[in-house]
């Protein structure tokens, strides 16, 4: 049995130590907001936070997450209050099929934790590991800037 701290709750997982964190989250804990896209850390659909850092959960074993704080897309909102990044995503109609967006949002949230006013180059660098096939990139860029504004105290539209 492996004990993981996920979204502030300690969860027991019956899994081999080498099971990728992604499958522990999805198949064992049924936290299916984190997505499988490539399995080789190329697409970012599986992005979660480990101690606040964005990681590709498909490519780290569950044992590496023991003792750390894991945050998934399900843990982002505070009750009914969505995270500013989620709010900006809704406001700017970012999503299309939506499959990659959990990962995109987790990467964007991590960026804004350390950078309150990211430039285009900052956004390029932080989001380069997340693929979207629907072509929501221009709106992702705009929504990150909008979320930064919201975090700084801007009004939600």
């Amino acid at each position, binding site marked *: 049995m492996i004990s993981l701290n996920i979204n502030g709750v300690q969860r027991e997982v019956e899994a081999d130590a080498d099971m990728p964190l992604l*499958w522990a989250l999805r198949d064992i804990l049924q936290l299916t907001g984190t997505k*499988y896209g490539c399995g*080789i850390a190329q697409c970012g659909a599986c992005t979660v936070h480990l101690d606040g850092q964005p990681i590709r959960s498909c490519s780290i074993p569950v044992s590496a997450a023991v003792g750390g704080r894991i945050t*998934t897309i399900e843990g982002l909102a505070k009750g009914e209050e969505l995270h500013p990044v989620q709010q900006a995503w809704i406001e700017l*109609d970012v999503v299309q099929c939506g499959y990659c967006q959990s990962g995109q949002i987790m990467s964007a949230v991590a960026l804004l934790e350390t950078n309150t006013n990211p430039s285009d180059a900052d956004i390029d660098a932080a989001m*380069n590991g997340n693929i979207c096939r629907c072509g929501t*990139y221009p709106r992702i860029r705009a929504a990150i800037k909008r979320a930064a504004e919201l975090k700084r105290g801007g009004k939600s539209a």
Partner: protein
Amino acid sequence: MSAEGNGATDNGRRQFLIGIGVVAGGTAAGMALRPWLVGAADVNRPPADFQPHAFVRIRSDDTITVIIGKSEMGQGVYGSLPMILAEELDVDPTTVQVEIAGVDPAFNHPFLPAQFTGGSMSVMTTYDALRRVGAQARSALLAAAAEQWNVDVVTLTTDSGVVRDSRGRRLRYGSLVDAANRLPLPDPTAVTLKDPSTFKYIGKPQRRLDSPIKVTGSATFGIDVMRPGMLTAVIARPPAFGASLRGFDATAAKAVAGVVDIKAVPSGIAVIAQHTHAALRGRDALVIDWDIGSSKSLSSEGLRQEWRALAKRPGLVGKNVGDVAAAFRSATRTIDVEYELPYLAHACMEPLNAVAEVTADGCELWLGTQSQSQDARFVAEALGIEPSKVRIHTMFLGGGFGRRASAVSDFAVEAALVAQGVGKPVKVVWTREDDMRGGYYRPLSFNRIKAAVGADGMPVAIHHVTVSKPVLANTAMGKMAVTKEGLDPSTIEGSADMPYAIPNLRVEVHNTREAVPILWWRSVGHSITGFVTNSVIDELATLAGKDPYEYRRELLKEKPRHLAVLERAATEANWGQALPAGHFHGIALQESFGSIVAQVAEVSVTNGKARVHRVTCAVDCGLAVNPSQVVAQMESGILYGLSAALEGEINIEDGRVVEGNFDSYRVLRLVDSPAIDVHIVTSGGPIGGIGEPGTPPIAPAVCNAIFAATGERIRRLPISKSLNA
């Protein structure tokens, strides 16, 4: 939950969350979809509901649920289709709940005896019907109110889910449910529809209804479905197209912890396990003897060489206007060029998957599909049961692009066969490599074009010979679409009927039969023909020494809608005016799926790498039901096409697909994504599609800009392969 009831105090966003979240979440948790109701005569209608037909349900608590039979793959049908119905029902579309329909003939495509989402046709084929059923329901509620108040119905009006009379009295729709149920339903073909100039919602931008569940991770895609006792399977698939199984040893695989069962199915060897990780481990441990067979000699490079020779020979005539031979004899200047496009994978972000449960009662499937009726039919055939015993639950699609409208229902049938005899639900997951190497690509295409201009520099003839595997002929639509000579309209769409005025035009086709499975890929033939024809028009403009935009204006002067779109794109892009140093413009226009789209790409080329800085797009889709999603679909189509144009290619060597994942099948990332401006041209023309028409013009617009920048003409995609360093 009418706007009247709580709209004044409630946060609209939360309503969306509650609205669609409850319904989709219910499905996610494994609750059965509500029993289906069709037609007014249904006696099982719950008394608390007014459900005049399959498309809307009004509850006494004012909850209004719109039931959508089209699949949501990002294109926004769960927003646009409810808007259309809500407009005539006269309720705020942002307050309705959206329910994902079961499979029912009520949701069949009007041109096909099937429930199907594709061809950019969801709005254009349901617009009139959804207006009529919305108006029918409103009319029934008005009649109920008139009876209750004992007044003439013509004195009543509606607004946001409330009936009002001339004295200021009001009745909520929910309070009229019982009364409406007792009255005969009005004839939907005879109801009065709104004058479009009075539309409150259609034509005005509306936010997506599914954003709240998609930004919180709670939207349920096929791959997210969980069923009690469910197992997960992956399949060891043949390593090459046409390979067959000689035998396998599962001893080691069975010993892997968590592996439950291993069985051969037609598509390979299924490893059924407690979870994905165990299934993958089990698959790795299989020892398999494959017979590669004749496909060992199959390669895309080999096909290319064969097809180059084939393109020099006469083919099936797809179009013959005027006399190209005579025109070439009298031409001033000619070109004789070859254009090539690679196989392309759809590469949906959600790899293919399906959950199936097979019991004595039949088969239940949960999956993201564009093709419910056919999936049910093929699954029934494979299991040897009646199609009525197959029940399909449509989930959110993590991308479709045509791949989830499989002509053979591959991922549905396979899941049913894996689950057969297991006694538990089984989720079959395709890994990214399975998905990418599993075939069903945009066809490889080889084209030879001879073209000529006259003394005035304008085109006198185009002779286009195209070689590729025909798309529709390899689907159920082949029977009705392909001519008895074998001409497949999808091969010549956009070339035989190009809008540019070409006095002598001959299009010929060679149909190929290689073992590589092909399928419709976003915009089908148009992403191929759009590249070839728009590049050739540019070549002719160069030959004539004319500006490519002015040249096109001349060729479209008899087509006012096309001309308006072309001019709008060029004007908004400041065509002909100074650009930043090293930046150049290219332009292209394609009509597809009933819509006309022109794009101007602003490109620079440095050290053999093309960078697209900005795309200016103009679109005439007749009516933009939800303009913000028209813009979103243009952006989407452009970036999907740009990704393919810059780097997309599937190569076959020794019968095997070279590319397997996003490290080798390179796709566009945010850093290379241009700014995009979309302008909607309002023509009042018939409703066109929006999911696909944004894709075809981008590759030629970019390549034409590369020519402007470098003088190098890209005649083979992807650009990364052709562009000189």
